[in-house]
């Protein structure tokens, strides 16, 4: 080919490129123009703000968890379910295991029992209850006005039926653990009994449950409070229930909205349930649709959705100035991040942790404590999350207001202190390379496991490694990289095959409605990935759920002691607590993002105008 042809081609390409670039800049000009136009005369102020935006620090205390106002009659609401994947479509509380499914169910079904802000059952829900003196016998009365969407009343039999299905050996959902505390549930599950002894239907609306052991956990989420319409499911074999049309295509519940139509995995439309027992909902219609995380911001900006179930908080600083048509609600997230130390293995045969401090590189509590002192979690929160995560203190996040003990002093960033502790514990730099050796003078290199995900995972891991290196402790990423989710949990031991090479790991827990931490840090639970146990810990955990702990003050005391003990022993240390943000369009009123002690309930949500507010 001649040179002339090549240059001609190059010219053509340049032309095309030029066109594309021009189109791009045209687009972004437009976007800016729109923003400026709407903000009107406050334009100059905004400029100042956006210049600082990068380094701006936000505080969750400045956000309100709810929003009130005067709603118009009727109206439609568009709800975005933010997910990379479709929702699985198991639309019944008794069978679902996918979190997105529960978001879909929440609109049309609800628990029979309501909880207050400490996650304790109240008498405000669809069912009321009485407890006996010992606290193991509950008598529930379902309100007369509570009906299924097809008009049938909700009966005690429906509730008992749900529990029987869950305890059935053919049941294919994950909730058996929630009912196993009922007297006779295990026998029923093993086929030794025809019915569950602890369930007694007294009359149409009254159900009595007897539990093996009275514990305060029963009152905070320990009772299975979702009914299953027996008149619909009666004839379906238990094994086929979760794949039946009654779950997947025409689900019904007792909630404020009825399912109108379902496009599998993509969207659901609801209409209001005029017969809702609390009163008629304000909205006429709700549409829920799945939107990809990559397009959340655009969907909110164009009013395609009025609100979303979750919003990536790390995007907040970038969009706070441009999303002018949206109010951000916020609250404490019920999760915490932590750094854990591997101190043993899992004993599969006996179903308990097998602690082995001797052979663990991090078996020395002083080393672990020094590593806690070496990291600056407030700086992590500010630098990586603009203040929307912050230094955590104990293993009961401040989310549990009445149990979180903020009087406990926990190590915070102090490298001098870390150095001092290490010096005293005998970790000295023998060979002069700037890295400490262990007290026996042997080289000490710790392997660190952490998960990939998001833009911050890698820099965050590097930050921790550098912080530890600054006090002379050499930590390396295991395999030199971050691990994929499944791989990570396999290797830290979610099935008991702990990878012996891992010494330190970073993970996070989202905690349940019940404050009891036994499920995470008890000696017999596989999720205690540190494989740490000791008598005092076991004692405190048991006391926390003992009948005596039905007394709130006693339970608070026990858990204060436990929080403090964990700070002393450092099998793990919490790093950051988190904030959760939820954007809602300005036209949406009466919405509360809390799951507990809501002041505004779902049926009250409304809109102020027919069309979404645009920026």
């Amino acid at each position, binding site marked *: 080919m001649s040179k002339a042809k090549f240059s001609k081609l190059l010219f*053509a390409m340049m032309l095309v490129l030029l066109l594309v670039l021009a189109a791009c800049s045209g687009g972004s000009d437009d976007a800016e123009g729109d923003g400026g136009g709407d903000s009107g005369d406050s334009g100059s102020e905004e400029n100042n703000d956006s210049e600082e935006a990068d380094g701006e620090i936000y505080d969750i205390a400045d956000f309100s968890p709810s929003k009130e106002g005067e709603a118009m009659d009727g109206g439609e609401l568009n709800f975005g379910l933010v997910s990379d994947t479709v929702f699985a479509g198991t639309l019944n509380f008794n069978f679902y295991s996918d979190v997105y499914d529960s978001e879909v169910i929440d609109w049309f079904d609800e628990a029979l029992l309501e909880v207050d802000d400490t996650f304790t059952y109240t008498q405000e829900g669809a069912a009321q209850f009485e407890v006996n003196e010992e606290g193991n016998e509950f008598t529930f009365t379902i309100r007369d006005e509570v009906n299924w969407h097809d008009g049938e009343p909700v009966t005690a039999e429906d509730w008992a039926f749900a529990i029987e299905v869950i305890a059935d050996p053919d049941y294919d959902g*994950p909730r*058996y653990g929630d009912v196993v505390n009922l007297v006779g549930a295990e026998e029923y599950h093993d086929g030794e009994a025809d019915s569950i002894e602890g369930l007694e239907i007294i009359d149409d609306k009254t159900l009595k449950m007897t539990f093996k052991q009275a514990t305060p956990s029963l009152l905070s989420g320990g009772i299975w409070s979702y009914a299953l319409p027996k008149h619909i499911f009666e004839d379906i074999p238990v094994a086929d229930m979760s794949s039946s049309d009654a779950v997947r295509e025409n689900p019904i519940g007792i909630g404020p909205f009825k399912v109108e139509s379902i496009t599998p995995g993509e969207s659901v439309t609801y209409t209001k349930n005029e017969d809702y027992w609390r009163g008629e909902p304000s909205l006429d219609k709700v549409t829920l649709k799945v939107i990809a995380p990559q397009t959340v911001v655009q969907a909110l900006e164009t009013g395609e959705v009025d609100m979303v179930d979750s919003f990536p908080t790390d995007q907040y600083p970038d969009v706070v100035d441009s999303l002018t048509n949206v109010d951000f609600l916020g609250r404490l997230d019920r999760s915490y991040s932590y750094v854990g130390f591997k101190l043993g293995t899992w004993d599969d045969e006996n179903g308990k942790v097998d602690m082995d401090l001797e052979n663990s590189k991090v078996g020395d509590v002083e080393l672990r404590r020094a590593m806690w002192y070496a990291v600056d979690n407030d700086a992590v929160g500010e630098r990586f999350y603009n203040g929307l995560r912050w230094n955590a203190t104990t293993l009961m996040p401040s989310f549990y207001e009445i149990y979180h003990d903020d009087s406990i002093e926990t190590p915070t960033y102090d490298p001098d202190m870390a150095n001092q502790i290490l010096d005293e514990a005998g970790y000295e730099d023998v060979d002069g390379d700037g890295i400490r050796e262990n007290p026996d003078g042997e080289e000490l290199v710790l392997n660190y496991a952490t998960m990939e995900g998001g833009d911050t995972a890698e820099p965050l891991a590097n930050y921790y490694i550098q912080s530890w290196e600054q006090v002379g402790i050499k930590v390396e990423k295991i395999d030199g990289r971050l691990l994929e989710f499944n791989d990570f949990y396999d290797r830290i031991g979610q099935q008991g095959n702990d990878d012996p090479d891992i010494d330190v790991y970073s993970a996070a827990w989202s905690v349940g409605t019940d404050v009891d931490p036994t499920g995470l840090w008890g000696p017999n639970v596989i999720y205690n990935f540190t494989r740490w146990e000791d008598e005092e810990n076991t004692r405190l955990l048991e006391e926390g759920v003992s009948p005596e702990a039905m007394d709130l003050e006693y339970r608070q005391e026990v858990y204060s002691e436990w929080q403090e003990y964990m700070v002393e022993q450092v099998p793990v240390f919490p790093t950051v607590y988190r904030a959760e943000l939820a954007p809602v369009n300005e036209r949406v009123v009466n919405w509360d993002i809390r799951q507990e002690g809501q002041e505004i309930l779902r049926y009250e949500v409304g809109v102020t105008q027919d069309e979404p507010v645009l920026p």
Partner: protein
Amino acid sequence: MWKFIVRRLLITFPQIVFLSVLVFIMAQLMPGDALTGLIDPTITQEALEIQRERLGLNNPWYIQYADWVTGLVQGDLGQSYRFKTDVTAVISERLNNTVLLSVVALVFTYLIAIPLGLISGRYNDSPLDSAITGYTYLGFATPIFIFALVILWIFGYQLGWFPTSGSVAPGMQPGTMEYYLSKLNHSLLPGISIALISVVGTVQYLRSEIVDTKQKDFIITARAKGASENRVYNRHIFRNSVLPIAAFFGWEITSLITGTVFVERIFGYPGMGLLFLESIGQRDFSVVTALTLLFGIASILGALLSDIILGMVDPRIRIK
């Protein structure tokens, strides 16, 4: 011809068996299983163990494989753990979407590619040709996931001409005209995005074939006979130049089923590619193996189809 097809099909069978064994073993080697995502302190370890036992996840791979093949022979692909329903139901839901999207993409691809290729070949080395070739180079260089995002942003969000996610508007009743129009509407933008990028190969093949054919003796003969320029191009040259496109066609049919992961993801379009990716991520093995088998069969049949079409278009290629 028939002999050839039968022989090809016979070779195909062991290929598929080998493929399925391979997939099964690889699936076993992946860390985690369908229950890994359920790490949740409110769900007890015992409850998960019961589920693992029930699903047979604790069995060695060959027993699981044998179970699977037994089911397969009976036409049962098993249950999806995640969707808690039959794998066939899950797949058929998605298959419709993917076929629709691929047909739309295919139609647009040929609608764009053939005229561009023809013009480019006929007026080669003209500025018009340079512009078209320039576009194809640009298309080769542009990653589809960036391009699709830009298209979505411009036409979906800025101009608002097309829906931005899903395969159908919420609340449509299946079976109505509105429903099908809405489905078509939802597949247009992703379909066009795929077409605009995937035309480049076809355009270039067509162009070079035409440029090549133009100089052949029989074209000179045709001209000498006095055939009009249009006739020369549309009859003599075009027919002899579509060979590579015909060869492509079989493979395009394969993509009808396999879907396109990137585009489906960006447009939130629930098709097969996305299902495959999700099922791997969530370790929903029954779906993964069923899909792999389906994809394997599709690509083997696609290759076969390509050969057959080629044989029909060009007798020289036909195997005796």
